[in-house]
């Protein structure tokens, strides 16, 4: 087995209390690698199609990668996955922080949680000592209180706690999972899966450093980023991702008022520049990272934002801010504190509230349904108030807790046209009218609309340095939907998924060659960009097969209608992809990926090439039975 791994996967069954450890082979590790790869493997192998994502048959998997916990910048990450209650498709999501490295130090590469506890519980892992403990005293409490309580109960401040919140307990379909209160496994509703298992938290403490193959080389690579970050990642330190607000607004693609506009008159008010000048009190970081891209904010009355929950990043500023038409930065920061305290996905929360605001303005939701609230765009206090209602499923919150796609179906009268989801997951803060390749990426993402395992076309308009290893050396327009752009989308997606298998942060500017050097130095495997891209491609194909086995078809690889309507103002007024263009691009992608052009099903030769013929057999068993 390669170094960097512990070689052990922990399995905890909450129904019968069984706790076991398995030790996959070296070949298994090099094939599935970790993170997303580990999750896709186990979900495809062990879940029966059609199960209830909120039932005991679902599994919740926390998976690290070989790089997790190795002392270099960007290695604080791990993934969480299961069948998503938001989409019914595969769910996986990643976060940085310190919990993943601690799980590795405790001696485990992954934790598979099965079944359902008979009462509120949490799992405590202290090296080899693994226990299922009573969590009744924590049920119904805010994240900060649970974090403090568990650390005090276990008597070790070094304990790292990951938890679902009140939102997860209440099975909000976009409840997420947090670690250390400020790092979020944000997407696909994994907090609801955790809550459905009566599992409030997993506390971890470990004492064995991660072993690497070439310690001197790891130190050399680590030193590079420690010395160079002010030059190559100074902006990330200064503004984190919040600097993006003004840029996307200038480009006319800042999601505004539920994606009806691309320019927000309050952009400067909610920008990172304004935050830095007013309420930013500190910066925060993840394990071994010198960049400190995370924000910490504090405000006085009326919102009294608590700095222990950090501060909003770009996605949250966009979703709770411009998407809801709210330009009061302190209200947005209060919203950020509340989604953190209740443990909700800030993207889905903001987009769902934005959707409700548009429904209200168009008369599809009445004042009676909103509980007397004037739910117009720009109503900051209403946005803040709705977050608590969603987390607790109170009033209108009960409807919105189902996610905007289900809410739209229930509201009816054309509300479906206002919802901005792909496969039922709310779109993040990147508009396909500006970044057209990303739009096709939304369609194809196995987890629904997602900007992390995707490309950002605007980044390739001036520089393509990062694409050199795959042979793309010419700049390309953000509006380009050619076959060549689809080829870039393919390798770009596969490489991002690989990052989520190895567990490297995409905000630390490691070049592809440096990533290979990191993996070589950590594992001792003589690998290459080619092999590592294949790792990403393999996980991507497994995720696609999982969804096809669940009954998804190529018709589900579709963009929400709103993105075909051009903006009336701003830098990209009049510009939008057409349904025909994106359909052709999607089918070009299928062919490039070795999937059938018309059905989108991976061809057998592709699965054999990726060494996952077994998953093809499994697909055939379910989808071709009787045929």
């Amino acid at each position, binding site marked *: 087995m390669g170094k960097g791994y512990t070689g052990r996967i922990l399995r905890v069954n909450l129904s019968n209390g069984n706790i076991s450890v398995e030790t996959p082979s070296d070949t298994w590790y090099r094939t599935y690698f970790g993170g997303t790869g580990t999750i896709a493997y186990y979900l495809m192998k062990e879940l029966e199609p059609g199960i209830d994502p909120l039932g005991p048959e679902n599994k919740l998997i926390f998976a690290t990668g070989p790089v997790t916990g190795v002392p270099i910048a960007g290695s604080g990450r791990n993934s969480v996955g299961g069948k998503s209650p938001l989409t019914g498709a595969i769910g996986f999501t990643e976060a940085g922080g310190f919990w993943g490295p601690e799980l590795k130090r405790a001696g485990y590469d992954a934790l598979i949680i099965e079944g359902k506890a008979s009462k509120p519980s949490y799992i405590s892992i202290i090296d080899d000592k693994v226990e299922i403990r009573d969590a009744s005293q924590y049920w119904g409490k805010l994240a900060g209180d649970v974090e403090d309580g568990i650390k005090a109960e276990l008597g070790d401040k070094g304990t790292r706690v990951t938890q679902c919140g009140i939102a997860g307990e209440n099975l909000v379909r976009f409840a997420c999972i947090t670690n250390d209160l400020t790092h979020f496994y944000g997407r696909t509703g994994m907090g609801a899966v955790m809550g459905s298992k009566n599992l409030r938290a997993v506390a971890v403490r470990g004492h064995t450093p991660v072993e690497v193959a070439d310690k001197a080389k790891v130190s050399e690579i680590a030193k590079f980023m420690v010395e160079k970050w002010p030059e190559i990642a*100074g902006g990330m330190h200064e503004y984190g991702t919040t600097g993006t607000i003004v840029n996307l607004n200038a480009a006319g693609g800042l999601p505004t008022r539920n994606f009806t506009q691309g320019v927000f008159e309050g952009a400067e008010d909610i920008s990172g520049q304004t935050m830095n000048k007013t309420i930013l009190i500190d910066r925060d970081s993840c394990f071994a990272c010198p960049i400190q891209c995370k924000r910490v904010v504090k405000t006085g009355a009326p919102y009294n934002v608590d700095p222990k929950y950090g501060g909003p990043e*770009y996605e949250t500023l966009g979703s709770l801010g411009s998407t809801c038409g709210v330009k009061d930065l302190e209200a947005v920061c209060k919203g950020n504190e509340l989604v953190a305290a209740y443990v909700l996905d800030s993207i889905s929360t903001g987009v769902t509230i934005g959707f409700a605001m548009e429904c209200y303005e168009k008369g599809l939701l009445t004042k009676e349904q909103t509980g007397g609230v004037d739910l117009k765009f720009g109503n900051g206090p209403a946005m803040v108030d709705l977050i608590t209602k969603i987390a607790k499923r109170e009033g209108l919150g009960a409807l919105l807790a189902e996610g905007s796609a289900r809410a739209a179906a229930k509201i009816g009268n054309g509300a479906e046209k206002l919802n901005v989801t792909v496969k039922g997951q709310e779109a993040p803060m990147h508009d396909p009218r500006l970044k057209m390749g990303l739009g096709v990426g939304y369609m194809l993402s196995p987890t629904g609309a997602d900007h992390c395992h995707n490309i950002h076309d*605007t980044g390739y308009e001036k520089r393509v340095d990062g694409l050199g290893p795959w042979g793309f050396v010419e700049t390309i327009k953000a509006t380009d939907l050619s076959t060549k752009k689809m080829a870039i989308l393919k390798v770009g997606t596969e490489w991002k998924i690989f990052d989520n298998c190895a567990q490297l942060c995409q905000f630390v500017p490691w070049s592809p060659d440096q990533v290979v050097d990191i993996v070589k130095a950590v594992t001792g495997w003589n690998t290459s960009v080619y092999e590592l891209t294949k790792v990403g491609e393999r996980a991507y194909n497994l995720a696609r097969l999982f969804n096809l086995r669940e009954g998804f078809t190529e018709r589900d690889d579709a963009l929400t209608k709103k993105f075909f309507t051009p903006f009336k103002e701003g830098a990209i007024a009049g510009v939008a992809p057409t349904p025909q263009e994106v359909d052709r691009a999607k089918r070009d992608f299928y062919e490039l990926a070795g999937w059938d052009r018309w059905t989108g099903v991976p061809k057998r030769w592709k699965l054999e090439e990726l060494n996952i013929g077994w998953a093809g057999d499994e697909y055939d068993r379910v989808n071709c039975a009787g045929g």
Partner: protein
Amino acid sequence: MRIKIKAFGTTYHLMRGGRESGEFELPPDATVEDALQVAGIDLQDVWITSVGGQQVKLDHLLKEGDEILVFSPVGGG
């Protein structure tokens, strides 16, 4: 003539000396591109430029007191 430049975006140190904004002296018929060169900003790092709230191209002619806003290309967020 004297013009101002203000840089935005995650590419923080756009200007020579790692600054976010600055004032520069330019000849009367200078363009946006001339100003960016004087400021030491690599054109590969420039995605959008605007003057007086309007997007302008690199060959846009400047006048005394103009403020150029420079936006770098954005990736993810």
